[in-house]
């Protein structure tokens, strides 16, 4: 992994079985799309839980870069900087 593009993927509890129980996955990626592609290579089951077959992020899954929802930024093209944390979270459910 290249040190200057290192980012952290935070995995929610419900999906940790998809990556051997890990709370975090460390990888190198310049934007969110590249991070997901790397996740697909390393942990296909985790990737498939976040994105459907068309590569679209599932409707009830949110991706945050640090504290920003990527839907409020440039979506999958949101750029990543060294040290960024990408957090996968299920959308709020219930009343």
């Amino acid at each position: 992994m290249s040190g200057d593009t290192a980012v952290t993927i935070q995995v929610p509890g419900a999906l940790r079985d998809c990556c051997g129980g890990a709370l975090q996955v460390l990888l190198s990626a310049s934007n969110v799309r590249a991070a997901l592609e790397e996740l697909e290579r390393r942990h296909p089951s985790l990737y498939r839980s976040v994105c459907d077959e068309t590569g679209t992020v599932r409707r009830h899954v949110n991706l945050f870069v640090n504290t920003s929802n990527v839907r409020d930024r440039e979506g999958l093209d949101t750029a990543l900087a060294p040290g960024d944390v990408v957090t996968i979270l299920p959308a709020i459910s219930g009343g």
Partner: protein
Amino acid sequence: MPERLILCVGTKKGLFVAEAPRTRRKFTLRGPFGSGVAVYAALIDRRGTPRLYASSCNAFFGMKVLRSTDLGKTFKETKSAPAFPKEDGRALANIWSLEAGGGKKDLWCGVEPASLFRSSDGGDSWEMVSGISNHEHARKWQPGNGGLCMHTILRDGNRVHLGISTGGHYLSEDGGATFTASNQGIGAGFVPDPYPEFGQCVHKIAGHKDAPGRLYIQNHGGWPDRPGIGVLRSDDYGHTWRSIADGLPSDFGFPIVVHPHDADTVYVMPLEPATRTCPGGSPAVWRSEDGGESWRRLARGLPKKESFFTIQRDAMDIDQLKSPALYFGTTTGQLWIGRDGGEEWECLFESLPPIHCVKAAVV
């Protein structure tokens, strides 16, 4: 090990497994498995060492297939679930049917949007069946209220019957390589042509392994201007169909079930089309013992009034014992047993989550 009865009960909140000795006097309940996630399809695979399968339709993280090799004491996800090829453009929205295939570990799976998948390794890997999934009609099918679902897969050697809502009945006679819309006599109340080539809202198809030419359909009936199109029978392997709805209080309903030892005995649960609940708030299963020529109401033990539940398309089944029992689950979370072929009803569990599917088998 003595045989016992297993029920798989798929609910809005996960899968439950009920078990009883052959006497069926007392059932014990396990679960929920896949907790909190809806289960629309289950399979009790009796080939060799019994295996239980269930779909797990996670609104957050997508579709999974659960498998148990210890009769439903524990479940694990299979290595993968059905998925469309990346370039296809469709994405799996639900899993509606799981059926055993020809080989020991072969499985067939019907999904939403209506497509068919096969596995040859007990559900660890899946391949789309192009003959129906990319059929020239496939992009013209429209979703019914439950979604564009492939809910029925019936196999008889090289014949494969599929039920699609709304697509109709499709038949393959070459083991699933190619399919033809086979809807002659199956009506539709929601399009100008009362008998279209395809596009019918078939709710469920049932057959009998010892009489493969005989099939029954619970179709979307309940149309005042097109009466009698809701309950149908075929005697020619599904090439043509005719109404057997005379004598029923409504030709609308979802499940249809055939007696395991008599292809002439068939069960339906008529519902009022507007509410999808039993006529008069008084639930009853209706049985024909002459292939649908006449019907008899079976309601002893069921509520006599003020019951307004729905029984979904896969929420009724029958076991294979000499005097079989029927089972149905309700959208209000009750699981009922109808002993002696539905003569006497008893509520086994009163407060489960809303029930999507019920499968029964002696293993």
